[in-house]
């Protein structure tokens, strides 16, 4: 998987490149908007990480230019501007996800993985399956093995999100943003409590747990 990081702060750029390289990605870096646009225009990347404020040409313009050129490489926007309106602007410009600086590397990595997975474009299905856990999106019921599992509406959405990102690390912030649509950081770790409640329902009494905690990052729903 090949990624391009467009970020003018060299130290931040080096940090991202190093982290992603160690996670097994091939990473190029551009320190300036125009250069980034030039590289990204080749269309050979699987994903872009674009800082919002760049010299030469700002990040949102770069993204808009790419989208106009029919290049639909998934883009993660990095920005120090974290207000809801700023996010809206970023996503409208053609960004696929928005991450506010400063961030934990695990957060960046999880989001990149989610973006790349989305890019691969699996066929639309009304059923999700992870191991022996099955979710029917139409009938809105869940089974694990032979057992039916009853979930509250929000738990259903939480599990659905985890299943859609099966095998990937999903951070607490991602869950808050996507399942609850909250863009603030609750002081208590409410997500952990929701996850443990969900775990009670889907893993309790089964030999192999599916919902794993990834230390320092988040959660992962997987068979291994």
């Amino acid at each position: 998987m090949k990624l391009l990081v467009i970020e003018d702060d060299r130290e931040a750029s080096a940090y991202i490149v190093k982290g992603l390289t160690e996670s097994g990605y091939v990473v190029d870096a551009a320190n300036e908007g125009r250069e980034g646009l030039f590289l990204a225009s080749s269309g050979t990347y699987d994903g872009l990480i674009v800082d919002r404020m760049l010299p030469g040409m700002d990040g949102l313009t770069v993204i808009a230019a790419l989208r106009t050129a029919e290049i639909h490489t998934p883009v993660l926007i990095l920005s120090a501007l974290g207000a809801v309106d700023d996010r809206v602007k970023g996503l409208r410009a053609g960004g696929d996800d928005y991450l506010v600086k400063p961030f934990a590397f695990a957060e960046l990595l999880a989001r990149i993985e989610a973006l790349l997975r989305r890019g691969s474009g699996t066929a639309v299905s009304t059923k999700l399956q992870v191991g022996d856990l099955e979710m029917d999106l139409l009938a809105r019921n869940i089974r694990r093995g032979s057992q039916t599992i009853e979930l509250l509406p929000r738990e259903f959405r939480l599990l659905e999100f985890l299943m859609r990102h099966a095998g990937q690390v999903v951070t607490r912030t991602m869950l808050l943003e996507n399942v609850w649509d909250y863009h603030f950081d609750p002081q208590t770790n409410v997500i952990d409590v929701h996850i443990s409640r969900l775990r009670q329902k889907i893993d309790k009494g089964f030999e192999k747990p599916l919902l794993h905690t990834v230390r320092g990052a988040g959660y992962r729903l997987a068979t291994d």
Partner: protein
Amino acid sequence: MTRFFNTNAFRLAAVYFSLFATSVLALLAFIYLSTADFIDLQTDETIDAEIRGLAEQYQEHGLAGLVDVIHERVTAEERTPGRFDSTLYLITDPLLHPLAGNLQQWPQVHESGNGWVRFPVEEHRGSVTETLAARASVIVLPGNFHLLVGRDMRDADLFRGRITHTLGWAALITLGLGIAGGLLMTRNMLRKVDAVNRTSTRIIHGDMSQRVPLSGSGDEFDQLAENLNAMLDQIEQLMAGMKQVTDNIAHDLRTPLARLRARLEVTLIEKPDEQRYAEALRDTISEADRLLGTFNALLSIAEAEAGSRRDSWGVVDLAEIATDVAELYDPVAEEKGLVLTSDIAATLKVRGDRHLLSQAIANLLDNALKYTPEGGVALVAHAIGPNARVEVADSGPGVPVERREAVFDRFVRLEGSRSTPGNGLGLSLVRAVSQLHDGTVWLEESHPGAVNPGLKAVLQIPLAVESGRSEPGREATRLLAAPHIPALAGPALAGAGTEPPRGLGET
């Protein structure tokens, strides 16, 4: 002095003075002209009457009769001493030789139209000879006899002189008063403006306690001064608040930074040990995360206080927001062995920001759950009059009366709560959000009088006025704003838009 002439006030006074002077002079000129005209008219009428009388005589007694009458009148007038405004008569033969009258000879006349003439006449009074102007009407009788009837203009000239004199003085006095008044007004105005200027100069030089003095008259200058003072009060208050915040930030952020630094230093002094290093780094990261969290909270508060995005607000359902937040915290309560009950109205429409309101209610619930060791927390949301009221009541230890306002300030935490995690910013955000929504927030006891009174936080926000239709502009904003909400709330990461829309399959 140059400064005085350069002032706006002086210029204004000068403009008004010239207008004033022009109108006064125009008025006086009008009075003069109409009075002078009137005198001329009167003279002419007297002469006309005289001529009419003489004409009667002429018709009845012929030329000889006319000469007799004139002779008679002249001698009668001469017998009355001290009369100088006498009527002038002269009748002559065709060769202009006098037949009768009080003029020795036909004068050197200047025609002034319509048979009227002007000429000089000499008057002897003792040894003094005076030349007066006279005005007369000349009639040519049949046989080319000339009749001249006129009056000297002595009285008229005297009267005219008196009027000119009077009006001249009137003009001088009026203009003098005008100048004096103008100067006085200008000075007065300048003094008031100067007071404002002096005050602002002192404030610029650092004395924030200065205020513009009031004259007590309640005029526009007083209003200006009052407004300026009110503004200064607010600025001073904000500055004090800012200073307080800066002090608090300095204190509350320095402590964890110092701790962080100390930990790193100690780790470095100790014997190199990979496992301990890793542990120290992890600790450092979580400490840094806490610091970042504090910064983010401060930023959110600052943003809510600035209130820059109120324009883009639509109508949101506070009941739905409260329900969602309650649902978010329900498992937290359960895990702590507490009971979270909610009693929420079906709908509570308010104009506002969903994210900020969610966060405010979340902060209240978070606090309540954090500081309640046992029992329960109740979330109640109902419409009370024109307001939506959200109450979060707990069965915890409560907050002493004298601290119930202070806890809304940034970084203020109660003594007993220092051990629990938190940054002392939660309630500050709630307050900022409530003020942004034109609402209020306060604390009271949930069970007044009880041994463990508990705490009830009340957040009150005005309900949206049901006038959506009469506000097409608002409606348009809402419609425009609508398409971006899915972009934000929807699956930014999740499988391309196949997630059910918000609100479906949940309530």
